[in-house]
């Protein structure tokens, strides 16, 4: 219980620190939206100062931060300085697309990795080869490169992709990449646990392989499986960002990148904070599950 509380407090502190850090960085960028407007039209210094006062850009950073957090908690993430729309709905729409891609590819990755490891634990040589192959694939071929190749092959040369739907290729590419990162260490862990004396003793007693897997191997391999999965899910964000931009999906990656290029700071800030908080959440959940699974983690602190 104390462990769980500590994890929650750490997560909250990390979330708050990251949010404040991001706010400081994007409050301190040289040049704000008024500069962009001024370079496009003809605003004199007084008009610029008036605009800054109107937008609240002349206040000290900590006051703007408090105001921003207060408004964000009430559901108001500000107004896009480029499009004049509220940021909240823009972010929500983008998050939906990103979550869809992330959930599908993360799910595929977990399914592939756990499926292959189970098959390998049951003694399948094919599964063993497949684990090695996708591990090599994920190390040597960055998703970025595979994505470009897939884009060329399917949409330029074969002309298929629009017909199949834009999500299929990115989901498969990310899924295989994630499975490759996950399957190898997981299968090594399973093999290590399977060689432990208690498993050999259980096998000698003539217990069925399924019973062995469920009651003698899985409980010991679970912590490693959970922490690897958590790491994979947190890292998924980088992959979805690349895929979104390559395949032109309207997700968080596109939102933030367009925001950066147009100095649309409310959008950039909200997008980055949302992404970072999602990762902090995944990390905290992983730690919670780990603490519940493995009592040894409690005695360490």
């Amino acid at each position, binding site marked *: 219980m104390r462990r769980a509380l500590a994890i929650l407090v750490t997560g909250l502190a*990390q979330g708050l620190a990251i949010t404040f850090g991001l706010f400081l960085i994007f409050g301190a960028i040289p040049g704000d939206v008024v500069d962009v407007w001024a370079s496009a039209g003809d605003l004199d210094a007084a008009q610029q100062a008036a605009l800054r006062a109107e937008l609240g850009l002349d206040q000290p950073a900590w006051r703007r931060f408090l105001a921003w957090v207060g408004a964000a908690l009430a559901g108001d993430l500000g107004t896009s300085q480029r499009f004049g729309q509220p940021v909240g709905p823009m972010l929500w729409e983008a998050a939906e697309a990103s979550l869809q891609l992330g959930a599908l590819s993360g799910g595929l990755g977990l399914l592939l990795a756990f499926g292959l490891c189970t098959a390998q634990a049951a003694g399948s040589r094919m599964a063993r080869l497949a684990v090695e192959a996708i591990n090599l694939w994920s190390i*040597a*071929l*960055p998703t*970025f490169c595979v994505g470009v190749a897939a884009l060329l092959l399917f949409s330029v040369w074969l002309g298929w992709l629009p017909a199949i739907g834009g999500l299929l290729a990115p989901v498969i590419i990310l899924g295989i990449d994630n499975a490759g990162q996950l399957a190898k260490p997981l299968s090594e862990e399973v093999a290590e646990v399977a060689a432990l004396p208690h498993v050999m003793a259980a096998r000698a007693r003539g217990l069925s392989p399924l019973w062995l897997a469920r009651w003698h191997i899985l409980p010991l391999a679970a912590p490693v499986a959970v922490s690897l999965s958590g790491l994979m899910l947190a890292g998924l964000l980088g992959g979805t960002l690349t895929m979104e931009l390559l395949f032109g999906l309207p997700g968080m990656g596109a939102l933030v990148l367009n925001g950066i*290029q147009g100095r649309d700071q409310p959008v950039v800030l909200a997008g980055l904070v949302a992404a970072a908080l999602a990762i902090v959440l995944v990390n905290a959940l992983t730690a919670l599950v780990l603490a519940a699974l493995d009592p040894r983690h409690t005695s360490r602190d």
Partner: protein
Amino acid sequence: MMRGLALAMLALALLGPWLAPFDPLDQDLLALNRAPGGVHLLGTDHLGRDVLSRLLAGAGTTLAVAALASLLALLLGGGAGLLLAGLGRGAEGLGFAVIDTLRGLPPLLLALIALAAMGPGLSPLVLALALSFAPLFAHVARTARRREQAEEYVAAAIVSGAGPWRVLFRHIMPNLAGPLVTLTAIILPRCVVTESVLSFLGLGAAPDAPTWGRMAADAARLAEAAPHALLVPVAAIALVTGACAALGGAARRYVDPRRAL
């Protein structure tokens, strides 16, 4: 084989400027989007620039950025990890609270944030990559140091009167080289890929610096007219990643003390 490939690529990157058949920036508007073959071995891009020459010119930039960034990450992260350890428990706890927070975020996101704050360019790119991977080095330095701290040679040094800094730098640091070198070898190819993605997104190197990510980004917009101009730099990125990964594996086996068993 991969090791030979890596060495060959290093040689190409170093000799690239002399080997290139054309000026990488020279535009030949009468030969746009030429397919590979003939005078232009790997074809030309949408401005009639020779793809092979750009690839060779970009090799140096791409590899130099990745190498500098991973070395800087090693210095910053490893240095921070050791310094914090020497400053006492309070400083270490606070410093690693920050480092662990950053370590939880994917490096691509950290690099994106740093570059958005600093603006595009080659030096911001190196710094952003270094900052993104430095928390990993700090973490590995701390874990390895803790393991060494429990060893008897450390106790012996303390008993014979060595102060905490002397123990840290004279006795423990040499034993951290193995894990840190291994991590550098793992991070190097990730720097190549991250650099390419960032440059592809228009956040990395400036448009006139021919890194592979930039070449890919330029060519991606016109992929239908000149698919080879996109495929060539991307294949080069994949090859370098594979070669670096193989080299990293070799380096890991070389420094791993268990290899003797």
